[in-house]
């Protein structure tokens, strides 16, 4: 459901290029909607993280070797891919800065870089999932597997949706439709992207680092 809602907000936000200053709060409708949506999305991840925390040590079925999180994780590898994702927040911020200065070309470059970094993260997640499955931890193997893949999978879907939007913005920019007047579009998308990164900090800490 999250995907569609995000889509809705972004789509609506691109409806109007220039932020409206005529709103009662002074914040544009589109930006306010994104904030409200992100507030809602906090609860989505809150529910998923709570579920994971409740279930991660409760596996009593499936092979012994993959019942505990500590048995399967490859922390150095995930640290690197986490760093890549966090780095993409920097490039996203640079893209927003560039468009606010009216530097359309640099904004476009940073948007593409952000998308590529996000794709590297997703690639890492795919690699990681494949490795875990090879070790014997499938989605249905045990309760830890179900909870782990669902939580990280939902985050992965959020990143993937973000990449789709980044590419859409990139194409818009190539076609000359993402000028400085649409700086707020980039900024609002940036809110989403930073949110997804912050959620990953939580997930990485809670799922991987805390034993």
């Amino acid at each position: 459901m999250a995907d569609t809602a995000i889509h809705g907000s972004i789509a609506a936000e691109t409806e109007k290029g220039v932020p409206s200053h005529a709103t009662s709060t002074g914040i544009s409708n589109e930006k306010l909607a994104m904030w409200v949506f992100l507030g809602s999305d906090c609860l989505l991840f809150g529910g998923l993280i709570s579920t994971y925390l409740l279930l991660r040590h409760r596996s009593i079925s499936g092979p012994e070797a993959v019942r505990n999180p500590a048995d399967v994780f490859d922390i150095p590898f995930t640290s690197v891919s986490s760093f890549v994702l966090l780095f993409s927040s920097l490039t996203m911020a640079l893209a927003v800065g560039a468009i606010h200065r009216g530097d359309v070309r640099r904004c476009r470059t940073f948007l593409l870089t952000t998308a590529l970094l996000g794709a590297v993260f997703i690639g890492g997640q795919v690699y990681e999932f494949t490795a875990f499955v090879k070790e014997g931890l499938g989605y249905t193997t045990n309760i830890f597997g179900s909870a782990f893949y669902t939580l990280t999978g939902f985050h992965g879907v959020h990143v993937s949706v973000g990449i789709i939007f980044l590419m859409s913005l990139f194409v818009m920019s190539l076609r000359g439709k993402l000028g400085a007047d649409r700086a707020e579009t980039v900024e609002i998308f940036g809110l989403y992207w930073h949110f997804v990164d912050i959620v990953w900090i939580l997930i990485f800490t809670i799922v991987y680092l805390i034993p």
Partner: protein
Amino acid sequence: MAIVERPTAPLELAPGAAVTARPLGFFTRPQGTTGWRSWLTTVDHKRIGVMYGASALLFFFLGGVEALAIRAQLAAPGQELYSADLYNQLFTMHGVTMIFLVVIPLGAAFMNFLMPLQVGARDVAFPRLNAFSFWAFLAGGLMLNTSWFLGGGADGGWFAYAPNTGVTFSPSHGMDFYAIGLQITGIASLVAAINLVVTVLNMRAPGMTLMKMPVFTWMGFVTQLLLVFAIPVISVALFLLTFDRLFDANFFNVSAGADPLLWEHLFWIFGHPEVYILILPAFGIVSEIIPVFSRKPIFGYPFMVFSGIAIGFMGWGVWAHHMFSSGLGPISVAAFSLSTMFIAVPTGVKILNWLATMWGGKLRFTTPMLFAIGLVTMFTIGGLSGVTHAVAPADTQQTDTYYIVAHFHYVIFGGALMGFLGGLYFWWPKAFGFMLSETLGKWHFWLTLIGFNLTFGPMHILGLQGMPRRMHTYVEGYGFEFWNMVSTIGAFVIALAMLVFAGNILKSWRQHRVDPVNPGPDPWDARSLEWMVQSPVPAHNFDEVPTVSHLDEFWHHKYQENAEGKVVRVATGAEAAQPGDATGVHLPSPSYWPLVLAAGLPLIGYGLIFNLGIAVAGGFIVLLAGFGWGYEPADDPDAHHGPHGDGRGPGHDDGDAHAGGDGDGERDEAAEPEPAGNVPAEVTVGAGGNPADPDAGATDTATTAPDEDGSTDG
């Protein structure tokens, strides 16, 4: 999106103004504003509200038939009208339908129709998203009900306790339809909630501070905030259930180590705010009705607002009172017991304020007023039985008995639904331009009240005698026979009452066709801004966005203090109202994409259940519609603007632009000043007779801006 209008800018888009993006070439842009097709593409919040209401009443019929089937089966002991399995499906689908497809969308109908009007806006913040919300709700509701033809309805109760709803115990596809259908209606509610929250925060007329908003809008606002935060929680629960059932995940698989309490917690963390989502809009409605028919302002307006907010907050801290018998441990039980008792306080404040509003008032017992009083009394009974649940030892005795059934019908039917029925009578002339018959309305009310108490009153007794809920039948000799028969008779009295209601709508409509009598903008001598526009409401709502200086702004246009300090009438409603003849108001254009996008969602659902190929097709439609939507400008530059297509004349334009600008200038200063350069530029353009949309103009400039490199191909 001229709805988010810049007040100082002209409201009209020039013919031939630059288009920033072209719609994908699949559909020509819908243009019509009449005929059935226009309803499919409309983005008008009033029409969407009407469609919410009509769909909800359709589902109300379905849920009512299910209820009658349940009561027929229970009329006498030892009956076997149909199997226990079908009985499970009937009570589950009855509950799911009534809560998710009747009461929530009825609330949505009122909130969609009224909240933009009451805050003095021309539409919601995102008109197309609003249309999408409705279509997604309808798609989810219809999908859920198609389960009857595709292997049987959901059969695990409306709260669907896992693992009882796993494939092992519920092997039909019913629970899959439940999980995915509700997921889709959840998307609809979430999108609508974001939309209305932004509308209330951002689209208020100048001078309409938060504490000048009508109580209905306040309650709607709290409701939408509850939805924003409650929907994702039920989404998580429904996702987990879906993954368990369709992809063999282990979330509720006890043999793999699952904890059955997980579902209960997730469900009720959503489920208890949900009951306030059901009731708060109805509280808002009676808070509008009672002052009008008591000829007094609402008593203790700030208390009404803050008690609503308090209910909104405390509603998050009481969910485990649904789980007292699940073995939570004494500390949790004591804590939730206390918080449950506390939440009765703000609710009591509301009831007290309604009584105090009526106290000493000049009461007029019209049909809306009768229903409002019905809510106050019936909800109080339901609230009192609710307080008995807060006492954990008593609750342990009452759990899973008919006492619980009696309680929640008193609050949801006697509370929410009574309020909505009153609201329908109250705002019917505003929406459709004719009154419902008062005589039949009173029959409707009294039959409803009597039938309701006959049906659900005896359930208190049955429950305390120990009759369990969700039982297919019962044996003779336990003393259940008499009250069950009374209850069944009552259910059919309610059905009769609803027939009277349907007859009332039909008769009043026919009468209106034969001999149209317009009730005028203000048939009830009412108080808030929606009565300041004509009935039915013109497409553009306000000719001129009003500047608000009082709570009950419209009332203050009609009544003022004279020299002796006495309040006297200075204008009739018709005189104080706007004539509704504005021209050249630029409205958001209709669109096919919300409907297309919403239609893709149930396809994904069917696909997940039956054949992944359909899901891929559905996903493709969603993606396509998403991009089509994104690349379609919210305003069609070729469209006629406003209901009066001739409003192109320079004179009209000027008048309108000034009318909009006068009042709004103050807000600009209050919010954020426009760049100074803007205004003269627009005046210049406006003087040319074809004022350009500032958005389109700005973007156009950017497209051809010299900082672009050679790759610009437009």
